[in-house]
């Protein structure tokens, strides 16, 4: 692959050690590129200083769209396009539209949010992933530091030392 990047990888075998290490390393002023974990580690996103996700806002917007689409479609159909007399009941009966409007709100919100999730994470069926260490979906945790042209051997040495001091069980460099 043409666009490979080089990383310094620190492997941990415990989530509590990892969390502690992330806090200390960031306090020392080194920027962590990413963290790979086999399951969601609570508090890791705060420790890494990631912005809170706004995916729930997408859910609300899609839900509101579904609500509007359902109610306006039914209104258009029952009042203008083909008004039908069902046993003398009103042409427009809001209460009877509650179930379909509700279901549509949920449907739009769920589909919209799920699609946004895969879009934002850039995940799709058949994607070839850049796997740092395949044990990170099993029992180990990884921290990566991107090594671009500005990072010299001194940087690699200090960060490696720091990782080991913080409890990393392995430190190595990898190009993916």
């Amino acid at each position: 692959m043409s666009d490979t990047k080089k990383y310094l990888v620190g492997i941990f075998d415990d989530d509590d050690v990892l969390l502690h290490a992330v806090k200390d390393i960031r306090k020392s002023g080194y920027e962590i590129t990413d963290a790979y974990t086999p399951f969601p580690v609570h508090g890791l996103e705060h420790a890494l200083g990631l912005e809170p996700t706004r995916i729930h806002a997408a859910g609300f917007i899609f839900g509101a769209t579904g609500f509007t689409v359902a109610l306006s479609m039914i209104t258009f159909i029952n009042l203008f396009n083909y008004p039908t007399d069902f046993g003398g009941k009103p042409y427009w009966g809001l209460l009877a539209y509650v179930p379909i409007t509700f279901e549509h709100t949920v449907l739009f919100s769920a589909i919209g949010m799920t699609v946004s999730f895969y879009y934002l994470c850039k995940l799709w069926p058949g994607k070839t992933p850049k796997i740092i260490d395949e044990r990170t979906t099993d029992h180990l945790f990884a921290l990566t530091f991107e090594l671009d042209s500005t990072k010299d051997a001194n940087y690699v040495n200090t960060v490696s030392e720091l990782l080991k001091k913080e409890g990393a069980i392995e430190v190595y460099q990898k190009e993916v």
Partner: protein
Amino acid sequence: MASHFESPLREPLINGNKTYKDITRDIVAPTTGKIQPKWAFWTAISAAFAGLFVFCIVWEVIFGIGTWGANKTVGWAWDITNFVWWIGIGHAGTLISAILLLFRQKWRTGVNRAAEAMTIFAVVCAGQFPIFHMGRVWDAFFIFPYPNTRGPLWVNFTSPLLWDVFAISTYFTVSLLFWYTGLVPDFATMRDQSKTPGRWKFYNFLSFGWIGTAKHWERWESLSLILAGLSTPLVLSVHTIVSFDFATSVVPGWHTTIMPPYFVAGAVFSGFAMVLTLMIVARHIMNLQDYITLAHIESMNKIMLLTGTIVGIAYLTELFVAWYSGSIYESYAFANRASGPYWWAYWSMMFCNLVSPQVFWFRKLRRNIAVTFFMSILINIGMWFERFVIIVISLHRDYLPSSWLYYSPTWVEIGIFVGTGGLFMTLFLMFCRFFPAIAIAEVKSILKVSGDQYRQKQLDEVSSMEVYKETTVTKGAWD
């Protein structure tokens, strides 16, 4: 990851001193290696029954609805009975994953994956019944509102039958999205455990290339939480809307305001019974006893006791209201249920759903696997009879005594029903073989709170404290 404190006296949810690595190995194990003869045997039997389903459906489509025992008086008959039964079973999965997620019930992680799979397969089975009940099934797409050349003549948005179309298709879609998004990280785990390139490609395709970075997990958790928040009212709405099919009619025995809560409780009740039937077998065959523990079974039995009793109270309330209403039609409908030609169906329902779950008041019985398995079968049968009682008994003696009759199903109806059982089991067995039957990542995330070795460590810490010197907190205090 001790994200929150839980009393060490609580029973552990993962036994056997597991590490993260053990969890991966144990859950991936049943999907690897040679196909077991036992699995192949049961899959073949199930597939044969699924074939029977296809045969009977083809028969019905070719020769028409006249091949069924359903007729003008008992129009809904077995078909809608089976539909409501299956859709009810399809309620436990989303309840476990959504409502128990919102209530932070950690025991859900051991059973949610299989229960959600079961939900989806049950909804697939349920969907067959109303579709083929239409008779001219090639016109089934008429149920969707689309601009057409007939006017355009639209569907009736004020009809509960149309609400059902929307409710069930939404429920199916949302459950599928929720289930699959939960599966994605576990497929990545299976990909990284695979030893052949073919297997790697297969699971990588399913995993969408998941690698588990912190940002992805953050979004994944947020998505799961909100899908759970959406599914919670959704799961309650689906069976509410199914109950509207009955409650908004003017048939004595159907036209009652108690229907929605009573149907929802009944759906949860039957859903948990089916989860238990399947999981008790699956945990033995796949050696997952350390993950689906007695604590899980006991929790589910408690929910069955609660919902079964709610259903029972609803039965008694119905009887009371039928008498108290003073309506002769209403009173007759209920007298006819208990003492008419179908009395056996009514009393089977009463026994299986109201009387039998009361054994779960006893802790010993709640934790007995044989009793639980037997009860789960009994409740499945009882809940089928409930729908039979509501539909067939209410209809077979209508307002016009000249059209009264005794309904019995034909072989085609029986074949379709038994066949959906085969379809359901085929799908479930395939799931057990090719998919991770337990949510690997979620079980790992509760290991440090609910694993037995961590619990024991907590207990030891507590018992070594100065204040507890006088008390003895012994090993295995939760037994």
